[in-house]
């Protein structure tokens, strides 16, 4: 008969004493899984307990996690490319060609990088759509929530993702790249007054040349990833501060939280959040035992499944599919038709149709469709949490009645963007003429 305190097991359970130096995959008690969080730096992103319903596959589709996994994959596959790619107009194309055809596993690494970039644009966009449709930018019952700011950060991260993809698009210095940058930077220069200076700042001169390539390279490998990484860290921290997914507050909406007056016999310093002079203590907490599970292993297991699954899908895709490399950049010949990358095709379609003529006065479609309209869309997206007047209870579920109108309008805009993208992809032929997808394009007349 021994005293419990002397067994090694019990010693490990003592507060502040961690059973293992490294993080445990198989915690044997609630206590251990709690300790696993405390002792693991990475897991500071995760709460000790999570709302069971917010782990549902069909609520969030785990799109944010997929985006993060793709970002991780982009960093990992970007590493070797950093050693192989030469950012010089004479050698860039050749070095990409080497990566594609001469280097062992080169084409696979490039394909992983390229597909992950394309998929990340899609995943981040779908994540935004999901968050909008579930009203997850709305604050619920928790104290000190600022979900609206996390939404704004998210919008900025979407823009950074697009910009990262676009700057990477230029680096192979092939025909696609060259003309995409020509059109892209000319859109910037269509802004009245300051436009030409912005273009000059972007391309580092009057023509697209070595200064342009090195600028886009620096943006692609340092500036934008650093910005995205910093915002990503903040985004995750904010999710944690706001009490997890919006769905988690929903579960505690029904028994409304009541603030009870501070008791003089107990200290609430760590339990409540001080507002005014007295701490407000909620009687209903998110950690109600029946609705929650331990983050380790329930949350970590699912996260691992999503991350590894994304990696697996990407690796297989990259092994099966080739990534294209057009002819080397040629400032003299524009490919016909010259198409933007798919995620900008809807904009290309819009700049095609938005030149406005009033008598002799003309506004270039580049400004209306390339700057003004996307600017208005991004502005609306950013401001939406403050425009949305639906009740807080509408947050965290799909298509609630109170948000039906705004969800429909949003879906309408998404549908227009998708349709324009499809038109640009499948229905635009030489000289940007419209063709049905099943029609063959005519012979392109030989150029002079």
């Amino acid at each position, binding site marked *: 008969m021994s005293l419990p305190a002397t067994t090694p097991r019990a010693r490990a359970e003592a507060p502040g004493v961690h059973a293992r130096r490294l993080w445990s995959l198989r915690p044997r008690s609630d206590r251990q899984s709690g300790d696993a969080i405390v002792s693991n730096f990475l897991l500071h992103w995760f709460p000790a307990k999570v709302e069971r319903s917010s782990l549902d596959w069909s609520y969030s589709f785990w799109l944010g996690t997929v985006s993060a996994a793709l970002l991780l994959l982009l960093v990992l596959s970007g590493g070797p490319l950093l050693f192989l790619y030469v950012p010089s107009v004479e050698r860039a194309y050749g070095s990409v060609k080497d990566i594609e055809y001469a280097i062992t596993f080169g084409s696979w690494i490039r394909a992983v990088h390229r597909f992950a970039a394309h998929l990340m644009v899609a995943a981040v966009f779908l994540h935004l759509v999901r968050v909008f449709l579930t009203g997850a930018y709305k604050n619920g019952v928790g104290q000190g929530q600022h979900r609206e700011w996390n939404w704004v950060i998210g919008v900025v991260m979407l823009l950074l993702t697009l910009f990262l993809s676009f700057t990477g698009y230029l680096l192979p210095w092939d025909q696609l790249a060259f*003309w995409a940058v*020509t*059109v892209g930077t*000319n*859109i910037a220069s*269509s802004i009245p007054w300051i436009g030409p*200076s912005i273009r*000059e*700042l972007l391309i*580092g*001169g*009057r*023509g697209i*040349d070595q*200064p342009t390539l090195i*600028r886009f390279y620096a943006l692609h490998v340092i500036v934008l990833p650093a910005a995205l990484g910093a915002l990503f860290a903040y985004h995750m921290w904010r999710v944690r501060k706001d009490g997890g997914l919006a769905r988690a507050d929903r579960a505690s909406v029904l028994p409304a939280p009541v603030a009870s007056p501070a008791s003089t016999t107990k200290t609430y310093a760590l339990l409540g959040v001080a507002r005014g002079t007295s701490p407000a203590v909620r009687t209903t907490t998110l950690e109600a035992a029946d609705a929650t599970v331990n983050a380790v292993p329930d949350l970590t297991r699912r996260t691992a499944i999503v991350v590894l699954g994304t990696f697996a899908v990407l690796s297989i895709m990259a092994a099966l599919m080739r990534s294209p490399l057009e002819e080397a950049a040629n*400032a*003299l*010949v*524009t*490919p*016909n*038709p*010259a198409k933007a990358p798919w995620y900008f095709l809807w904009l*290309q379609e819009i*700049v*095609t*149709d*938005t*030149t406005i003529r009033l008598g002799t006065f*003309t*506004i*270039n*479609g*580049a400004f209306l469709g390339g700057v003004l309209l996307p600017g208005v869309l991004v502005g609306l997206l950013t401001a939406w949490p403050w425009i949305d007047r639906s009740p807080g209870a509408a947050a965290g579920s799909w298509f609630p009645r109170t948000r039906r109108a705004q969800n429909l309008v949003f879906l309408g805009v998404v549908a227009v963007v998708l349709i324009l993208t499809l038109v640009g992809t499948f229905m635009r032929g*030489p*000289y*940007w*003429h419209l063709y049905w997808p099943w029609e063959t394009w005519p012979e392109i*007349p030989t*150029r*002079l």
Partner: protein
Amino acid sequence: MGEPQNRRDFLLTLGTGAGIAALGYQGAASLRSLVPNVSYDAPTTVKVGLPAEFPDGLKFLPDQRLFIFREGTVFHAISAVCTHLGCTVRAEALSNPEARTVDGKALRLTHRFLCPCHGSKYTGDGGNVSGPAPRPLAWYHLSLASDDGQLVVDLANEVGHDFRLTTA
């Protein structure tokens, strides 16, 4: 700021202000350094060859992204840069050339120009007829070099659509 400040507040204001000024100035300097003062672009005045080397009709000069149009002794130069977003337009020969007077001068239009990026169309003299292009294609000043008689095009000097260079 009628209140007298104590030394601590004053130093705090001073320090913060100096910090902001320093950061602002360094930020501005870093940004300014990215705006090029010197640009090593191709020269804007280029010799493109002897007039006799040009065929009647249209010739494309890829390096200058320029079309030279010749009709007997008359020359003019049309830019191949689409005025919408800067793609290079392609010339398409018309099956039956069209006679036109442009700004009071006779002109035979043998081609039209089409843009592969967003489908702008231009007439043979560079006028924009459809698509998103907001302006006609630019015409550039042509002259003859005094030393060797070559055609000289000045890409920095845009001229009206009635400009012609008549060689002897």
